[in-house]
C-alpha cells in the first residue's frame, strides 16, 4: 500500500468522527461544519463530498437535519446530534483514544519516529 493510500484511508476513517465532534457543541449548517473541519484538520479535500456523508449520518439516525429559512438570503440546512449520535460519538471517542494510545506505545517501543533513520 502506498503512503498516499494509507493517508487517504486514515482520512476517510476519521471523517465520521470529526463530523460528529463538530456538531456535538450545537447545530451547524453544512458550510459551517466544513469551515470548522478546515480550521482544525486537513480532512476536507473536496467540500462537496462532505454533504453525502452528512446525508448518510442523517439516514443512520446519528444526525437530525432541518432547513432554516430567513437567517440568510438563502436557506441553510442545519445538522444536530441526535441521542443515538451522542451515544455513538461517545463510543467512537473512547475507541479512538484507546487506539491512538496503543499505536503511540508501539511507536515509542520501536524507538520513536526517527526509527527509520537508524
Amino acid at each position, binding site marked *: 500500500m502506498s503512503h498516499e493510500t494509507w493517508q487517504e484511508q486514515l482520512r476517510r476513517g476519521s471523517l465520521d468522527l470529526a463530523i460528529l465532534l463538530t456538531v456535538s457543541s450545537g447545530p451547524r449548517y453544512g458550510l459551517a461544519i466544513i469551515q470548522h473541519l478546515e480550521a482544525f484538520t486537513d480532512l476536507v479535500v473536496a467540500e462537496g463530498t462532505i454533504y453525502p456523508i452528512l446525508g448518510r449520518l442523517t439516514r443512520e439516525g446519528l444526525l437530525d437535519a432541518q432547513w432554516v429559512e430567513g437567517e440568510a438570503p438563502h*436557506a441553510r440546512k442545519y445538522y444536530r446530534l441526535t441521542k443515538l449520535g451522542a451515544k455513538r460519538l461517545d463510543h467512537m471517542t473512547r475507541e479512538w483514544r484507546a487506539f491512538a494510545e496503543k499505536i503511540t506505545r508501539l511507536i515509542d517501543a520501536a524507538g520513536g519516529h526517527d526509527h527509520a533513520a537508524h
Partner: protein
Amino acid sequence: MQLTETGESRVNGYLFVLERSLKTFLPSDVVRDAVREIESHLRERIAAAGGAPNEREVLERILAELGPPLRVAQAYSAERTIDEAVTTGRFVPMVRAVWHLAVSTLVGFFVALGLLIGYLLGIGSAGVAVIKVFFPENAGIQFVHGVPVGFAAQFPVSPGTDLRGGYWVIPLALAFGLAVLVVTQRCARKYLAWWRGRRVS
C-alpha cells in the same frame, strides 16, 4: 458578491450537471434536497467573497473547492446507492448500485460481468427445471462426448444433442439454480460492502 449574468450562468451550469448526474441513481426528492444544499453552499461562499474584483477567478476557485459536479455525484452514489444496497440487501437497489459502479469504474465493470453470468446461470438452471415439467423431452442435462456440461433446454432438440435425465432433473436443476443465485447475491452484497469500505469522500 453580486454575480453577473455570466457568473449566474456558470453556477446554474454546475448545478445542472450535478442534478443530471444525481438523477441517474437517486429519487427525485433526494436530488432536489441535495442540489438545494449545494446551491446554498455556493451562494454562501459567493456572498462571503465580498466585492472581489475578478468574479470569474473567485467563482472558479469556489467551484474547484467544492469539487467537480461528477465527483460530488460520485460521492453521493457511494454514500447513498451502495449504502442502501448493502443495508437492505434488496435486489433492485443492488442492481442499481452494481450498474452504477459498472459504468463508472473498470473493476466495477468486470465484477458486474461476473455477477451477470452468475445470475444468468442461476435463472437459466431454474428455468430448465420449469421447462422440464411441460416439455420433458426438450430439457435435461446436456452431455458432450459423454461428459455432462450443464442443464440445457432446446426447441427443437437439434440432431447430435445429447440431453439426458428424467424428472429427477427438476429438483436438481432447481436446487442448483437457487444455490447459484444465492451465492451470486451474497457475492454482490460482499462486493458492495467492500466498495462501501473504500468510500469516496
